[in-house]
Every structure is written in C-alpha cells, then in structure tokens.
C-alpha cells in the first residue's frame, strides 16, 4: 500500500459529553487494582528484554507464592491447594504464552499484554454457566495483580514524563484515576463506557476539554500513538484520519471558535428575556482554579460548588484547614455574588479508596452523600466547620445532597447546629444566617417537596441523578444510556412539581445538572417556572444568548403544549422545531443535532 494512512482511517461514533474538536495523539490508559496501566510500544531491539522482564515477574511471583505456602500453619495446610492452583495459573498458556506472544507480535509493553490476556480469560469465563467455576476468575485476577505488582522493576512511563499533550483513551476513568493524571498534558478523553453524567464527562466539562464516551471497544481499535480526531459535539472519533479529514476538521474547529467568541462578547450582560424577565445564570464548578473562568464567562454566582475533589486528591482525608482555605478563596473571589457549597457527595461512581467504603453492588443506591455523612459525623462536622468559617468571607450558602426525606434534613441540621454552637463557644466568626438548602434528586424528595420546603431555604434540582433514579437507568451503563431522557414527560412533571412547591412555600429554587446547559431545554425550563439555572461555565454564553431570544410568555405557552405530549420523542421533536424558529442560528451552528 503506497498511502498507508489513507487505508487506516476508521470512524467511530460515541456519546458526546463535552464539546470541542481536537486533533492529537492517543495514549492508552487502564487501571488494575494496583495501579494505572499505560500502553506503550516497544522497539524491535527491546522486545526480548521486555519478554525477559515479564518472565522475571512471573518467576518472582512463583517464589512469593512458594514462600507463602511454606509459611502456612499446619492447621490450614490442606488449603495449600489454592496456592498450587495459583502456581499452575502462572504457567497456564492462556496467561503465560499468550502474554509473551502479544508482547512480540503487537510490540507492546508487558503490563498491557498481560491486561489483554486477562481480558480474554475474562471473556471465556463469563460464558461459563456454572457460577462456582465462573467465579474462579477472581483467583485469576488476584494472580495477575501479583504479577503486575512485580512488573514494576522498570517503572512505567507515566503521563508526567510526557512532554507532548495527548488524548486519553481508556475503558473508563474514575475520579481517583483522573487525579493521578497530569491534567495539563490531557487534550481530551475518549472511553469505552460511560454516559452523559459519568465522572469522565463532568471532569472534561470542568476542564473545558472535549470528551466522547460509550465507544464500546475503542481501546481495542486504537493503538498508542495513533493520530485521532475527537469531535466532542457530534461524538465522532476518527482514528488515523487522512489529510482531507484533518483539513475539514480544522476548518470546522475554527468556525465554532469564531461563533463562540462572538457570543462570548455579550456574556457579561444579564440574561433577560424579550419580555423583560431576568434569569439568574450561575455556574457549576469543582476545582478552585475554575473560579476565574466562572467570572470571565459572566456567571451570576456559583450555584454548585462540588467538594469531592479534595477528598479524592490528598492522601488520607483533607484537614479542616485545607478545606477552609479552598472555600474561603472561592468565596472571596466571587463575592458579593453567592457561592453555594454542596457538602460531600462521595459514593456511587465517585469512589474514594481512603474512606474505605466497601464495594457495593449498587453504589448509586448505596451509602453515599448525606447518608455517608450522617454515618461518619466527624468527617461531616469537619467539612461543616470549614464551610461555616468560610462564610465569614463572602456570600456563602450551604447545600445537602441526595436528601430522600425529612428525617435526613432534621438530622443534618442537628449536626449543623452542634457545629455552630462549637464555633460560638470559640468566638469563631461565621455567617449566623447562612442559608441552608437541599438538592432535589431522589424521586421521594420530589413527592414530599411541599413538606421539605417548610424546613429549608432553597431547593436545587439535580437533574442528572433525578433522571437516573426516576427512570431506573444506571448512568454509567452504556447499554441503557439511550434511555437517559431529560425530555421524558415524567421528568418534566417532577421538575414542575418541585418548582410549584418551592414557590408556594416562598423559597428559592434553581436547577443544576446537564439540562441547565442544554440549548434545547432552556425554553422548557423557563416555561415551567424556573428562574435560576446553574451550569457549566463554558455553556453560559450560549444559554444567555438563547434566553435573550425568547419570551417567558411564549415559553409558558409552549410548556402547556408540551405538557399534553406523552413521550420523550414527541417533546424533543416539538422543542426542536420551536428552537429552530426562535433561534435559527442554533441549527446552523450544529447545536440542535441529536
């Protein structure tokens, strides 16, 4: 073949979760239980050394297992067959020969070759009906972990050592993984699994870099160092693009940047509808560094400050002082505008190894967020003290996540008042009248909204989780990602009920979550009575632009029509038509694509 690049081009389509177009080199990353794994290519003259490195790790593992067996007390000696079977697995051709073959044929590092062998063994075991035997895969995984640990003889090349920016290609990324990556070197993320609201998506949006998830087998199709085009708007991935594709994408990239900067010029102005209603547009943020971007994008405050990052980043739990410094910095910077700090929302797919939360079958329904905080009051109190102390330096509000009923509010407020008493006794300064609100993201809280409204100062509707819980969709399972439907009539009715309950009680209500930043959702949300949105700061210019192009009167009329529709598809089709008519340039610029 004379033109190799041309024949290699492959196009994939995934779920776009963070917009932008990038062209760059791929870097494959995976994690095992012991460490993050990277794929890298081995040059021909180094291949035999790489095989030796693998054989050496196998030998070391064998020796360790043999020592372990010898040290076993007689009483449990009859269980030593477990070690025998581990030793045999190390010699097994599915594990041993096949890994060596992969190193030699694919010219890849031992860690990655071993990981691929494990994937294959997993596949075979997953097809076994007998549950006892198919569970033996755990033994295989344990043995392979031991080998991986022993493979550290040559330290893996890490992202920190790379002097060129790369596109991270992975099966999935957990918050803990992303904290180990040198973010400055990351141009974008593409992953096999994940959906609209997975951590990869939130992370990419916060960093304002493109991401496409749910690509199923992209880690098998892409090799380390391959050239990639990632379109975070359409979800298209081009592997080894030919010249015309590269030129075409560079052109599109320039056009979108031009449009973005044209609307950004008016972003600092308020979002007022054609009929004169002012809508508050606040920002969601996670990293302290983001706060300047929040201000530059013209946010009317910070509607959601996620606080998990410090708990994932540092070794051990963060100290109250560390938390306080962070919160204070953000509060001071954004003052006099409001800063709403959400207390720890760990759990679910955000997994902290340091907190030793046990593995759960259904983490999204497990011990997380406020449940976790009420069970670990010391961790909770330390965060509350930090937030209260920061409230002396700005306009701070406090928000509890994942409230499912009144009892949790009462319990959380009881702990809050204990912390206040403590601070009072030490004469520590804080805002005595700090507003306290809750996230509405559990369906039971929606049903009880009238009752809950009498006990808090504001509601913030978290649509990402609400959609997941109400429609029974695992948000990181790409098989059901298509069912994640913000336009589902049930969701719209739930939001309406919460908004009405809040207004009835005279408390504030806002909406955070992906819906707030979706150009198609804005008019519906305004139509059902929302007057405050909190969204990723990058989307603020566009959302403000849309709000300036519509009127509340018309949005309410549209909502009455939408309320008569019975499926998500009908709602989507209706609002797509309306938005085309109201803001024609949205379609021209590709913002209304499905």
């Amino acid at each position, binding site marked *: 073949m004379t033109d190799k690049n041309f024949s290699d081009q492959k196009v994939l389509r995934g779920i776009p979760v963070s917009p932008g177009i990038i062209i760059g080199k791929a870097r494959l990353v995976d994690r095992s239980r012991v460490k993050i794994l990277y794929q890298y290519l081995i040059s021909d003259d180094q291949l035999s050394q790489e095989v030796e490195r693998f054989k050496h790790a196998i030998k070391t593992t064998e020796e360790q297992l043999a020592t372990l067996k010898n040290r076993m007390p007689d009483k449990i000696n009859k269980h030593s*067959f*477990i070690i*025998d*079977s581990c030793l*045999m*697995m190390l010699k*097994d*051709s*599915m*594990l041993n020969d096949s890994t060596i073959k992969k190193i030699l044929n694919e010219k890849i590092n031992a860690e990655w070759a071993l990981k691929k062998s494990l994937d294959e*063994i997993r596949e*075979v*075991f997953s097809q*076994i*009906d*007998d549950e*006892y*035997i198919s569970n*033996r895969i755990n*033994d*295989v995984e344990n043995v392979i972990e031991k080998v991986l640990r022993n493979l550290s003889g040559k330290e893996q090349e890490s992202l920190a050592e790379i002097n060129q920016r790369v596109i991270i290609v992975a099966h999935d990324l957990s918050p803990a993984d992303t904290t180990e990556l040198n973010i400055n070197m990351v141009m974008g993320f593409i992953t096999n699994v994940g959906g609209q609201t997975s951590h990869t998506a939130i992370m990419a949006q916060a960093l304002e870099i493109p991401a496409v998830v749910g690509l199923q087998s992209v880690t098998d199709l892409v090799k380390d160092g391959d050239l990639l085009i990632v379109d975070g708007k359409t979800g298209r991935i081009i592997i080894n693009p030919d010249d015309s594709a590269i030129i075409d994408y560079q052109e599109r990239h320039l056009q979108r940047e031009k449009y973005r900067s044209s609307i950004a010029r008016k972003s600092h102005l308020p979002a007022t509808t054609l009929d004169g209603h002012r809508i508050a547009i606040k920002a969601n943020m996670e990293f302290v560094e983001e706060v300047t971007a929040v201000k530059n994008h013209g946010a009317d405050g910070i509607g959601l400050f996620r606080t998990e990052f410090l708990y994932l980043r540092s070794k051990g739990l963060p100290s109250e002082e560390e938390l306080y410094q962070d919160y204070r910095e953000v509060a001071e910077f954004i003052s006099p505008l409001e800063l709403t700090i959400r207390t720890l929302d760990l759990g679910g797919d955000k997994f902290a190894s340091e907190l030793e939360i046990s593995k759960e079958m259904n983490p999204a329904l497990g011990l997380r967020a406020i449940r976790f905080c009420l069970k670990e009051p010391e961790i909770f109190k330390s965060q509350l003290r930090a937030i209260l102390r920061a409230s002396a330096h700005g306009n701070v509000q406090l928000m509890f996540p994942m409230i499912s009923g009144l009892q949790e509010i009462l319990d959380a407020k009881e702990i809050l008042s204990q912390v206040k008493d403590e601070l009072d006794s030490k004469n520590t300064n804080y805002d005595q009248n700090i507003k306290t609100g809750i996230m509405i993201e559990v369906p039971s809280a929606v049903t009880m909204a009238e009752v809950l409204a009498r006990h808090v100062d504001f509601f913030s509707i978290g649509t990402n989780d609400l959609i997941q819980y109400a429609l029974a969709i695992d948000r990181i399972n790409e098989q059901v990602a298509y069912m994640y439907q913000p336009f589902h009539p049930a969701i719209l009715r739930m939001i309406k009920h919460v908004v009405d309950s809040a207004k009835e009680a005279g408390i504030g209500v806002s909406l955070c979550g992906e819906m707030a930043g979706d150009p198609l959702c804005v008019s519906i949300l305004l139509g059902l009575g929302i007057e405050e949105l909190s969204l990723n700061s990058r989307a603020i210019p566009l959302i403000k632009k849309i709000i300036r192009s519509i009127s509340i009167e018309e949005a309410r009329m549209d909502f009455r029509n939408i309320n008569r529709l019975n499926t998500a598809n009908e709602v989507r089709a209706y609002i797509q038509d309306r938005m085309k008519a109201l803001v024609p340039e949205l379609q021209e610029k590709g913002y209304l694509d499905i």
Partner: protein
Amino acid sequence: MIKKLMINNNLGIHARAAAKIVELANRYKAHLYLKKDDKEVDGSNILSILTLSCPKGTEIQARIVGENSERFMKELSELFEKKFGETR
C-alpha cells in the same frame, strides 16, 4: 489412546480437582487432552480445564498422546474414580 471418564464428585472439576489433573499431567512427558462436547483443551492448563465447565455427572473424553500413555491413563482414571480424593 482415548478413554471416556465420568465425573462423580459433588463439586465437579473445580480448582482443586483441576490442579490435581495438571499435577499428574506434569509428571508425564505424554500430552493429555480433555474433551467435552465439541471442545477439546490442553490437560496441562488449569484455566483451560476450568473453562470446560464440568459439573457432577459430566462425561468427558481423555486423549493421551506419547510415552507411557497407558500408565498415565490408568492413574488418571483412578483420580476420577476416587473423586479427586474428595469424600463426597
């Protein structure tokens, strides 16, 4: 040589039983192949044996190629008959 063998222990060919088969196979130069339905695997590979998935009552076919295959087969048959040294 080829022989049909019956699995009589309650647990079937689990890790421990598979380990005993591999142990035996490693003592002989001859090659052991185990076959269930249409699938034949290398009898010296523990993972391959496990993936055959043989619960109690399964009949498998053992094929031995090479030196001393008769003695090898005799020992193998005994191992199966004695339920891999298990009581049940």
